[in-house]
């Protein structure tokens, strides 16, 4: 309806048929029906054109590295706007506020809420709120007052405005824009805390913006004379009502969605649809009640993500995720293109150099002042203080975008005589921040970081030392519970586990809430996928049969590729694989520094943001985390196994198991300590098998315990043996007692890897549910060089297994 209002006779002139009104004299075979369908046609066409723009500049990747995508889209918008203007002599297409606020913005906000890293968000919520509320108020107030001061001083010439109008203008332009911020910060990799602060601020400041906008708008209508203390107090109250009310609406809808997904097991086909509809309704409901719609939509996404991800089928979850990204990315593209097009319209331009330049200056300056001030205050209370570079980036990253433009278009021309000036200024500000700050952000960050890094680390020892210290500090923080563990969070977790899980999640979903299980699950899937890919490349999966041969073959033929997958600790194979490295070793300028720089694991502090508008998968640092996790788990497993294997005979296990089984089972469910992890994993699947409770598993349970690839046994033994007079951990765990200097004994798991790198049985070591008894054996076989005793247990263990099959 919006485009309809604008579309001109010039377009309609293409339509020759007003056929429905005239009487027809003969049967028309084909009628030109433009009049009837031109509205949806134009909409679809514009969407297509906007998305094609994205395609156009993706063809040249170097371009996107320099200029952020949003900037490029605006440029293309200019070009298109120019074309249309040239054709029609008037700008037929503009970004209308209604379209923007009701058709383009909601999905972006919903996507932002749904993909929000919750732990990080709520962990930093205090800081985010401070920046969003106080920061935005500060920006608005200072900008308004400064402009008013300049206006009084006569710097702007003769414009018809007043203090309230300028304050209103300040409030709408003060808000950092979520769309623009994400678009730019995605190119720049900053650390996760900084990312979440800017991102969170841009989302939550809508609460303030809406309130300020409405309050000042009402004040302007009332006139300056009628503003007294009552009105101001009402204004302050309205802030709380709007912000908190909006959030509550969002939470209510989140509850609705979660409850709904609990029951949609049979209609999985349209299950994803509910998320979108209800998310949109939350936006509209808040808007209807004149509360903050963005806050509502954000909190809806934030609160429901955990429960719906657990409740819904995996395919539905990935459907939701992909579709959200399509909508969000699509909307963003359309918004930026139209921002460009809207500019090519002489009718809206009123140029007042002083006003525009002063606005730009004040926005920039006051943003920085605000950020530094607030950060200084926050740093007194924060666990990890924000350092100067981060503050600089945060101040520089205060981008304004389409929300400001949409708001300024909503102004009533009669009340605001200078509406056109404000529109022009807003557009200039948006272009300036998005393009200029967007383009220079990445080089700025790189330069700053490089400057920091170049200061130290001249020697290798220094580098290693520094990194070790980083890791050490992070570990100590984790152990002492500085970050992540606190009273409120524990309380919330307890509440959540007790009530919310029961209410909002399906019984099956409740069981698999263990975070370690999820990671293992993902690792397994990744392993399996790479295994299949490798098999496809080799032509068939037949290589699995000839394990030893395949091993050597791989190394010789695909050595370069496989070096990523296998760590070779046996020198003989090494020589074959890496002939080029031999040469490197001989040459003098072997760049150890560079190597360390590239390959040292980064500590937690360093860039690892998990939200990406452009990609479905998280960025590559997740891979590093998974790799570390995998290695840790493997080495723990190995050391644990080597401590345990052959210590207690299998017979003992079954006896103990039967006796203590209910208690152990319950224990296993609630704790996630590492040996018991496998029991937990295991139990989830056994739950799936037998609908009845754990107790019903009864005698079969210990038998099934063996199915779990032998991992469960040592774990159970551990539990058993705590009651034993001889505690199991009496021998020092091997991660402590590595007294052998000979490196070939170092980590048995690596040798295991070497022997059977990619076989299904090896993979199943991590997999909870084993499909055949074979896996159990090969797991032990894999480690037979390291632990000879393990094999002797085999005959005993396979017997109970055979009973099952």
């Amino acid at each position, binding site marked *: 309806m919006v485009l309809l209002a604008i579309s001109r006779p010039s377009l309609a002139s293409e339509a020759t048929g007003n056929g429905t009104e005239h009487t027809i004299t003969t049967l028309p075979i084909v009628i030109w029906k433009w009049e009837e369908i031109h509205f949806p046609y134009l909409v679809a066409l514009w969407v297509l054109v906007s998305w094609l723009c994205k395609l156009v500049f993706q063809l040249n990747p170097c371009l996107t590295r320099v200029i952020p995508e949003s900037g490029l889209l605006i440029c293309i918008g200019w070009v298109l706007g120019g074309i249309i203007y040239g054709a029609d002599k008037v700008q037929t297409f503009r970004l209308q506020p209604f379209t923007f606020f009701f058709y383009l913005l909601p999905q972006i906000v919903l996507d932002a809420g749904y993909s929000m890293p919750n732990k990080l968000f709520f962990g930093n919520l205090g800081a985010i709120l401070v920046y969003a509320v106080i920061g935005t108020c500060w920006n608005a107030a200072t900008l308004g007052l400064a402009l008013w001061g300049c206006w009084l001083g006569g710097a702007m010439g003769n414009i018809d405005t007043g203090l309230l109008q300028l304050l209103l203008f300040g409030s709408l332009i003060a808000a950092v824009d979520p769309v623009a911020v994400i678009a730019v910060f995605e190119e720049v990799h900053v650390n996760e805390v900084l990312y979440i602060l800017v991102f969170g601020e841009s989302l939550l400041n809508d609460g303030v913006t809406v309130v300020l906008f409405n309050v000042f708008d009402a004040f302007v209508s009332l006139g300056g004379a009628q503003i007294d203390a009552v009105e101001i107090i009402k204004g302050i109250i309205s802030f709380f009502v709007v912000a908190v009310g909006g959030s509550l609406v969002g939470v209510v809808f989140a509850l609705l969605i979660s409850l709904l997904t609990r029951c949609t097991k049979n209609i999985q086909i349209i299950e994803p649809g509910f998320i979108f509809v209800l998310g949109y309704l939350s936006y509209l409901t808040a808007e209807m009640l004149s509360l903050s719609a963005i806050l509502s939509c954000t909190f809806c996404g934030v609160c429901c993500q955990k429960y719906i991800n657990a409740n819904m089928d995996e395919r539905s979850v990935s459907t939701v995720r992909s579709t959200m990204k399509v909508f969000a990315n699509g909307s963003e593209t359309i918004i930026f293109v139209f921002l460009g097009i809207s500019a090519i319209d002489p009718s809206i331009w009123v140029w007042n150099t002083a006003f525009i330049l002063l606005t730009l200056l004040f926005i920039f300056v006051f943003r920085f002042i605000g950020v530094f001030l607030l950060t200084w205050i926050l740093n007194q*209370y924060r*666990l990890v203080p924000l350092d100067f570079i981060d503050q600089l980036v945060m101040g520089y990253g205060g981008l304004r975008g389409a929300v400001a433009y949409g708001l300024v278009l909503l102004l009533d021309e009669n009340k605001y005589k200078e509406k056109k000036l404000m529109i022009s200024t807003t557009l200039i500000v948006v272009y300036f921040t998005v393009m200029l700050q967007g383009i220079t952000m990445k080089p700025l960050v790189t330069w700053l970081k490089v400057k920091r890094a170049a*200061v*130290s*680390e001249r*020697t*290798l*020892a*220094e580098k*290693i*030392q*520094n990194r*070790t*210290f980083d*890791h*050490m*500090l*992070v*570990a100590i923080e*984790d*152990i002492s*519970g*500085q970050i992540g563990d606190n009273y409120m969070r*524990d309380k919330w977790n307890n509440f959540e586990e007790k009530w919310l899980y029961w209410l909002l999640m399906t019984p099956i979903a409740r069981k698999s809430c263990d975070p370690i299980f999820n990671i293992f699950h993902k690792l397994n899937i990744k392993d399996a996928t790479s295994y299949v890919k490798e098999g496809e490349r080799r032509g068939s999966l037949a290589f699995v049969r000839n394990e030893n041969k395949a091993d050597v073959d791989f190394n010789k033929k695909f050595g370069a590729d496989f*070096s*990523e997958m296998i*760590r*070779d600790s046996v020198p003989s194979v*090494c020589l074959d*694989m*890496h002939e080029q*490295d*031999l040469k*490197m070793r001989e040459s003098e300028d*072997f760049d*150890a520094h560079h*190597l*360390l720089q590239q*390959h*040292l694991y980064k500590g*937690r502090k360093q860039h690892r943001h998990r939200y990406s508008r452009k990609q479905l998968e998280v960025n590559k640092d997740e891979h590093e*985390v998974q790799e570390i*996790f995998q*290695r*840790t788990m493997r080495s*723990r497993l190995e050391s644990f196994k080597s401590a345990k294997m052959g210590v207690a005979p299998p017979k003992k296990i079954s006896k103990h198991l039967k006796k203590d089984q209910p208690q152990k089972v319950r224990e296993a469910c609630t*704790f996630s*300590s*590492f040996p018991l992890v496998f029991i937990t994993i295991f139990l989830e699947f056994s739950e799936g098998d037998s609908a009845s409770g754990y107790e019903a598993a009864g005698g079969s349970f210990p038998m099934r315990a063996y199915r779990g690839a032998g991992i469960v046994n040592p774990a159970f033994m*551990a539990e058993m043996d705590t009651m034993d007079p001889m505690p199991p*951990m009496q021998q*020092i765990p091997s*991660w*402590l*007692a*590595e007294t052998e*200097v000979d*490196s070939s004994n*170092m*980590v048995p798991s690596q040798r295991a890897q070497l022997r059977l790198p990619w076989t299904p049985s090896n993979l199943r070591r991590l997999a909870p549910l084993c499909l055949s008894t074979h896996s159990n054996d090969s797991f032990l076989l894999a480690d037979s060089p390291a632990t000879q005793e393990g094999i002797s247990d085999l005959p005993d263990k396979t017997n109970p297994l055979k009973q099952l099959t």
Partner: protein
Amino acid sequence: MGSTNSTLSKIPNVEELMEETGFTPAHIVRLYDRFEALDKEKTGHLRPQDFGAINRLAMNPIGDRIIGAFFSPGQETVDFHSFVRILAHFRPADKKHPKDPSMPEPVNSRTSKLKFAFQLYDQDKDGKISRAELLQVLRSMLEMQVTEEQLESIADRTIQEADLDNDDAISFEEFRKVPLGRARRLTYQHGPLQHSAPRILSQPHRK
């Protein structure tokens, strides 16, 4: 704070502990709460599995080594006192106290922190980091795609740089001499309990 006092009274020898480590009562209480949260079976001791339950440690390349550092050789449990003693190494430093050479080295001095780090490398506790030990640490901190040869080269070069007395191993004295540039923080903070404690940020000293 009534709860602080009641918790403090639960801990035996708490004054001695505070004296030795320099933690304030509020810190001790917080650490005690953490200890109890980790000690899920309420045995009063922590075992390696309890540390293993901290998920984030599993994502730390040297996480297991640090866990190991909490346990003295031969012991398989850690009681609250040892727990606090080790964490005391990382307490924010008291910049106010003048350096008194006659007094014993405070627990959280720079040297004790370095000694702790040294322990992480030196697993066999012979007072030297041998090439093999260095190799182990390197291997755990580097991505899997680095080859064994590259690792060995790095280890060799590192020892070459740091080893001053040419015994092909790094002793504690040599370890100390390596300047720490980027590791600006050698301590951690206690958050809201921290009002009285001076801010950390030990500035890097660059040679």
